[in-house]
């Protein structure tokens, strides 16, 4: 081997090895993730929402959706199947992707979107959907059309697609089976505190575009779309005004539970500043169900 060409040859050998590892890990990871059983873990919830679930009522949103909407109470009250697809830290893009994925399998009768956090900037936990690039069409389209060339280049690597999934898989293995259709009950009580009022709200334009896309999809498929503002100890007045105006603009039903005194005065219904505990979620779900029946 001529020393002048030895480095390029070694580089080719290393790249070939990396490629083999890449494809091997990618193959194994893809099969593991696609075959995950239905559990309440983050990766389990994402996989089920993007690839498998069907229901009459679809709950979209972030952690507030996951912890507040007791699917069983809603289903019993509405006499419909209900699937809660909320995942903590996800924003409007994820809600859009889940709705698109659902529409490939079925057409829900009603979509409920918990707006809190949906319009915040930043990608949040959206990278957790990367394992579904090349597997789920909406996710693939999203990355192909909305991310830069560097991200698309990186996504050609299977190792990158499954970057950070090992701990999600281990947590999935330790998680309980999903018998509550995506609802995760929070325990513990927050000692009583006064509610606070904040004013600043600047919706992220990209998130707003996805939210509008959700509205458009629902309109195209004649799906009833309901926006919900969950109760929380910190009231963002500007956000509330923005959501109200958005709902008026698109003629959407808004369930605003922010100012309902029951959550704040009578019992200890909060787990923390922004999430209800199990009892709070039960009260909230009953109230939402009543409004959905109308």
């Amino acid at each position: 081997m001529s020393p002048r060409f030895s480095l390029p040859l070694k580089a080719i050998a290393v790249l070939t090895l990396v490629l083999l590892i890449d494809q091997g890990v990618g193959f194994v990871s893809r099969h593991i993730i696609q075959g995950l059983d239905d559990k309440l873990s983050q990766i389990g919830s994402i996989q089920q929402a993007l690839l498998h679930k069907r229901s009459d009522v679809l709950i979209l949103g972030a952690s507030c959706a996951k912890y507040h909407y007791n699917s069983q109470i809603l289903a019993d009250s509405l006499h419909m199947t209900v699937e809660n697809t909320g995942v903590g830290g996800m924003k409007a893009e994820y809600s859009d992707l889940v709705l698109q994925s659902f529409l490939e399998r079925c057409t829900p009768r009603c979509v409920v979107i918990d707006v809190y956090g949906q319009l915040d900037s930043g990608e949040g936990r959206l990278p957790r959907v990367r394992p579904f690039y090349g597997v789920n069409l909406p996710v693939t389209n999203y990355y192909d059309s909305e991310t830069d060339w560097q991200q698309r280049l990186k996504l050609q690597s299977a190792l990158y697609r499954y970057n950070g999934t090992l701990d999600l898989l281990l947590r999935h293995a330790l998680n309980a089976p999903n018998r509550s259709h995506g609802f995760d009950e929070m325990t513990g009580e927050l000692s009583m505190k006064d509610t606070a009022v904040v004013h600043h709200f600047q919706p992220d334009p990209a998130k707003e575009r996805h939210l509008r896309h959700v509205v458009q999809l629902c309109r195209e498929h004649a799906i009833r779309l309901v926006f919900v503002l969950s109760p929380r100890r910190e009231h963002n007045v500007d956000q509330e005004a923005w959501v109200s105006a958005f709902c008026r603009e698109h003629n959407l039903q808004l369930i605003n539970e922010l100012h309902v005194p029951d959550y704040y005065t009578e019992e200890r219904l909060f787990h923390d500043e922004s999430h209800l505990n199990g009892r709070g979620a039960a009260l909230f779900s009953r109230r939402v169900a009543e409004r959905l029946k109308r």
Partner: protein
Amino acid sequence: MIVNSINFWLFFAAVVVPYFLCFRGQRGQNVWLLLASYVFYGWADWRILPLLVGVTAVFYGLGLAIARNNESNPRRASQLTTLGVFLGLGILFYFKYFAFFVQELTALFASLGVPCGERTLHIVMPIGISFFTFKLMGYVIEVHRQTAAPTRDAVEFALFIAFFPTILSGPIDRAATFLPQLQQRRLYNERDVSEGLKRVLWGLFLKTCIADVIAPWTTAVFSNYAHHNATTILVASPLYLIQLYTDFCGFSEMAIGVARILGLRVAENFQRPFFAKNVAEYWRRWHMSLTTWITDYVFMPLNVAFRDWGLWGLYAATLLNLIAIGVWHGANWTYFWFGVYHGLLLCIVTGLDKRRKRFEKAHHLKDNELYAWSRRLLTFLCFTFGSVLFQAASMGDFLGTLSRLGQGFGPLYTEEFSSLVIYALPATCLMFLREWVAEYRRDIHFLHSPNMLIRLVTIALLISFIIYAGQLEGNSFIYFQF
């Protein structure tokens, strides 16, 4: 455009190919590298580029004038050197410290009942200013001391100051070692390229698989310290030190590697500091290019000036030396007290040195491994405490963080902690293993194994691990803010 981004590597490819293929002499290579360095710097902040070019021109002229007067008129040469040092310090003071001083003075006068009105200065701090001003000042001092020959070639000098792998975050190079390398043509050398790539790879591993994996958790803890208990603070503190080390060492490794690919050797910055047995040794292994700079140009002159005071003079010089290192990082009281804390530690170590040696001799501890490791652990804990001070946004935050230790233990904050355990822990173990091997077992090799198969497989596994477990979003480096 940072070294852990795809943009940087495209830029580097566009620089390195013509660098080796198109130029027949060192001058062409230097001009090309200088252009690339200015493009690189301008990419970060084009508004500061004229400042960089301007101060480079001034210090180039100063260097020549000092050299001309060194023999014929030493007094004038000294005056010019002093001018250069004050100019460098002045630039640093204006851009880095002036707003802080105005703010502190306003607060002081207000507390004394003298109203000065609200004054907030918005001075844009040039990126890398602490690094290139130290190079500029070091150059005039070295030329005056005649430890470095002044260069008559303006391009050579400008390249020394603006060399793109090191301008943003060091290492802080010395004219005596760097300039002579620019005076000969750099030929494509497989050994250099291979070694450079390995260092880049290791740096990328440290940055993406350890520092950036730890960072979200430590940031979540320290930025909300009031919500965390003693357990979480006690776990976050050593983790922050490891994050700081792997972030900065990772950058230094990549900078050194990139320079090496170009056929240039720049100063080393770290030498396995976690294996240091005392604070003095730790500082000899940590951010070496800064500590040696300050030792040579601050500590030594102070030590000479204070020599009549005996041991107290040494303590005073040590304390001032460490305060200089502390405040070099920025205009914040936390950095000042960081320097004071380490200065006092060094004084204690120096003061107890003879007693320690007597104790070790009396108890036959010199070769006792358990004793050596307990010293390393103690040194690590001392630096851990210092790193809590280093990361705090203000002294109030630091004291607030400490106060949490008195609030009692409780459950560990576990949000996102699993990724730390699953990715950062094995990566940190690998880092310690490699450093232990480099420290004690030079017969074991992985990246440098004489067996090509082991070498290639190790490299392939490391690349795969980085892609699978690393944070590949091109996060910035902690030391860019300095």
